[in-house]
């Protein structure tokens, strides 16, 4: 099986061609952020040459959606939002066209009151008059009862695009649902244009293989399907590096992945060889979302970070210094970790200038010693960030006595480092963590390899209340009646079927990776003083992992 992996970064786009696990070719070109599809096609051309027809699949990790959000290049979205009782929803900040609707759905998915028809009609007429193309509809508790969102979507059907909150995620968290819906609806036009341009370019090159894009959760999704859920492709970069590290160094223990770049280091955590997920989703431009994502952190520590000396010691980052003295010309204005690496002969560069930079930093210290101290501080700071992440994972709320008593803190047994400065920092990282530190072969294209090797992910969630006689699987828009005898086994069957449905909808053919059930909750309900049924909550997922090759 021949797979292409493309990772579009901030400065360069990397591509790899794999045959199974074997690296056949790699290529790199600079990125033009105004023409990402052009960059990707040019990279494919450079990578494949005449053999375009032999490729079996193409996986892309692109910054398109992330950039669109960061640069405010999203479509104006008409938002219809029913909040119901609770927090005052006025804080929700998603554009000029946000209309709050009266009415409510309660915590069990009971419809208390539908939104007023006249207000909805007037809002849609206004959106239409303004020429809006994309509509987002969200209610509180729509993961328990999608009916109001579905009804609103029907009313808005004449608009080219409508996003419903319940389709994007079955997780609770209303503000995140609102922001996710808004972002998804707002990315519609841009993503469609991108997708069309890629399809056209690929056709021109003679590539007939299916195309997928990488998601923030370490999985892939077919490009056609992503047109309906473009938000899923946001912040796929860290997930490419985490999956790349897994592809280059598969292991089944707890470990930490560091992708050390010029400005930042991305940190990912693995428990028993499986990457940890965020509890809800990514936060982008300050907005929390339900976009499923790997648990990664970006800290302002990189090769080009600014190094300062204070009474407490060295301060590295979070600001970027600019091009390090060792790689530039002209006046030396400051020191960077890269200069320290050059001084210690761990990296190619102008050693004289690097030495001068470190001398300026601490005039009375031998530059080699300053260099060693700076890199030790770098390793130490990374360790602090990892410790904090491990602690945050450990501190996630649990709700049962057994879960509280069984909690285990992640205990990394190894550090895997990728990225430009990784090799030069290996000793300091091993020392800071007191653990073995591996820098895998081909680490400089780890992200592209991660994009190539990743398999699809899927997830769905179920909420059943046999006392009220209702079942809901929001990701497939299902809300129906059930009998009193509905149990956990029924729940598993319905969810497995939902996953198959989602797989078919995504155009995934062949055998699915194993579906696992997580976060089981089952409780008897009592009304008055007698048992009336059960509340069952369950999630099913296809975990991120490496595709069989």
């Amino acid at each position: 099986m021949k797979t292409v992996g493309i990772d579009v970064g901030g400065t360069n786009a990397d591509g790899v061609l794999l045959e199974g696990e074997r690296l056949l070719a790699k290529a790199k070109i600079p990125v033009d952020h105004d023409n990402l599809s052009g960059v990707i096609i040019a990279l494919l051309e450079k990578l494949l040459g005449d053999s375009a027809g032999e490729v079996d699949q193409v996986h892309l990790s692109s910054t398109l959606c992330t950039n669109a959000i960061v640069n405010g290049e999203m479509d104006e979205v008409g938002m219809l939002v029913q909040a119901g009782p609770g927090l005052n929803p006025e804080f929700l900040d998603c554009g000029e066209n946000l209309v709050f609707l009266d009415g409510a759905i309660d915590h069990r998915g009971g419809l208390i009151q539908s939104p007023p028809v006249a207000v909805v009609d007037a809002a849609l007429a206004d959106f239409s008059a303004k020429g809006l193309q994309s509509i987002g509809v969200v209610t509180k508790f729509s993961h328990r009862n999608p009916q109001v969102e579905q009804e609103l979507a029907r009313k808005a059907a004449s608009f080219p695009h409508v996003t419903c909150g319940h389709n994007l995620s079955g997780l609770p968290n209303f503000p995140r649902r609102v922001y996710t819906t808004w972002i998804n609806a707002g990315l519609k036009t841009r993503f469609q244009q991108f997708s069309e341009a890629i399809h056209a370019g690929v056709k021109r090159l003679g590539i007939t293989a299916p195309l997928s894009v990488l998601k923030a959760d370490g999985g892939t999704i077919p490009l056609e399907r992503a047109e309906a859920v473009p938000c899923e492709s946001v912040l796929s970069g860290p997930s490419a590096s985490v999956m790349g590290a897994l592809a280059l160094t598969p292991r089944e223990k707890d470990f930490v992945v560091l992708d050390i770049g010029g400005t930042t280091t991305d940190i990912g955590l693995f428990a028993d060889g499986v990457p940890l997920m965020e509890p809800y989703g990514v936060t982008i431009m300050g907005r929390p979302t339900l976009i499923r994502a790997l648990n990664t952190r970006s800290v302002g520590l990189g090769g080009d970070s600014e190094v300062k000396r204070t009474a407490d010691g060295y301060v590295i980052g979070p600001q970027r210094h600019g091009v390090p003295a060792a790689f530039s010309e002209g006046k030396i204005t400051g020191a960077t970790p890269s200069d320290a690496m050059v001084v210690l002969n761990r990296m190619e560069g102008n050693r004289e200038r690097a030495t001068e930079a470190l001398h300026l930093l601490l005039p009375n210290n031998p530059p080699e010693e300053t260099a060693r101290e700076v890199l030790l501080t770098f390793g130490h700071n990374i360790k602090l960030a990892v410790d904090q992440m491990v602690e945050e994972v450990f501190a996630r709320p649990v709700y049962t006595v057994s879960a509280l008593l069984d909690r285990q803190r992640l205990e990394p047994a190894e550090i895997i480092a990728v990225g430009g400065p990784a090799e030069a920092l290996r000793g300091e990282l091993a020392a800071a963590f007191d653990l073995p530190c591996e820098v895998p072969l081909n680490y400089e294209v780890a992200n592209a390899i991660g994009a190539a090797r990743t398999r699809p992910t899927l997830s769905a969630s179920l909420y059943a209340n046999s006392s009220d006689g209702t079942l809901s699987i929001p990701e497939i828009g299902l809300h129906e009646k059930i009998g009193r005898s509905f149990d956990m086994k029924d729940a598993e069957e319905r969810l497995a079927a939902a996953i198959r449905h989602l797989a078919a909808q995504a155009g995934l053919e062949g055998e699915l990776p194993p579906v696992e059930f997580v976060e089981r909750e089952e409780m008897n309900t009592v009304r008055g003083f007698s048992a009336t049924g059960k509340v069952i909550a369950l999630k099913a997922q296809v975990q991120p992992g490496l595709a069989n090759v």
Partner: protein
Amino acid sequence: MTRYMPQAVRKTGLILFPAFDWCITPDHPEREERLLYTRDQIVEEGLEDVDGIEFFNPELAAYADIDRVHLCAPSSKALLTESHLISAGGAVRAAKAVMEKEVERAFAIVRPPGHHAMQTVFGDRGFCVANIEAVMVEYLRRHYGVRRIAIVDTDCHHGDGTQDIFYNDPDLLFISLHQDGRTLYPGTGFQNEAGGPAAQGYTINLPLPPGTGEEGFSMVTDRVVLPLLDAFKPELVLNSAGQDNHYSDPLTNMNFTAQGYARLNKAINPDICVLEGGYSIEGALPYTNLGIILAMAGLDTGNVREPDYDPQRFVQSALMNGQIEGICQNALEIFAARKKWDTSVCRGEEAVERKSIYYDTTGFGVDQVRHYKLCPDCPGYTEVEASGAGELLHGFTVPFNACSRCQQAARDAFTRAAKAKGSREQVVLQDRVADIYETA
């Protein structure tokens, strides 16, 4: 996080632990499902993402934390499950979060509750085994040197356990608002229950008529609770935040609302809240808990309403208002006449108090005699003899604010009693000054 989420005015900690795998019995009000809908509401509101609201898991209280407060028969280890230690540990975690300045305010939404657990514990009383507020209070005193504390108990049931534990403590002002004991479990909390001989007027009971709503609660808050807190000047204000005064609660007969709970919390402005009762698990708890959290954090509570809320339904009669005015007047007089030594209730060297304590969950009684030992320099130590359920307990308790003479006197009395003890009898020295719990 950002301006895209609300920002708490006061950094507030939440210990939300619904213990979904623990119940007294499957159809008991204190069952797995109790905080399910509250958890669902809090999570759906996105409070985990609100800047300035921090979530903490509970820790497990140590048996020593329980033994600092209670005299358990046969022992705390025999009576308390891990769930009880977690519930008490949740309250302790809330206290730590505030004292360590991780947050300014904290709310432990934990179960089972604690305010019916008295000083002596023979089993489960009114769904409570360990008094989690009391465990927190003595923890605060032991580990953070806090002395003066006020507890405002706003559960619908009289906080008889908390009253019992701190009855003779003039450094603790206990105010309980509850439905009149003539109409509700546990049948106590009348205004003449005003404190032990060393703390007369430091227990203030406000028994309210069935049907009391927002107006009545506002009246007692404004006329009694706030002026008393002002006069007492506590270092910390704690709220036993039971939510069974709600109009939809199945076990009680009051008319209170989520809006009312939010306003009550704003007025009392407690440093730490601990959930107590509240058994309208769908119609009340999701909204009352949310209202309290938002009030503590200084966020807008105006939109926290039960789906069927209609203020017109909660207008109080003039008769009821008059009745509550009278209760307020009595309370103010009791507090105004407070004194740290009331020798008129003493005979010789001590004051004696007899109690019959009923354990409703399994159904047995305990007979108890407590001797408050007089001391001119401190509240004095107490001696308690309690028997029931085949257990005989003989305890000596030195309060945290005792003088060294009382501490020694209790030790001597304990040694004498241990020598003379019968075969079934358990003799205990609980010295809160030295943090000692010794049995013989």
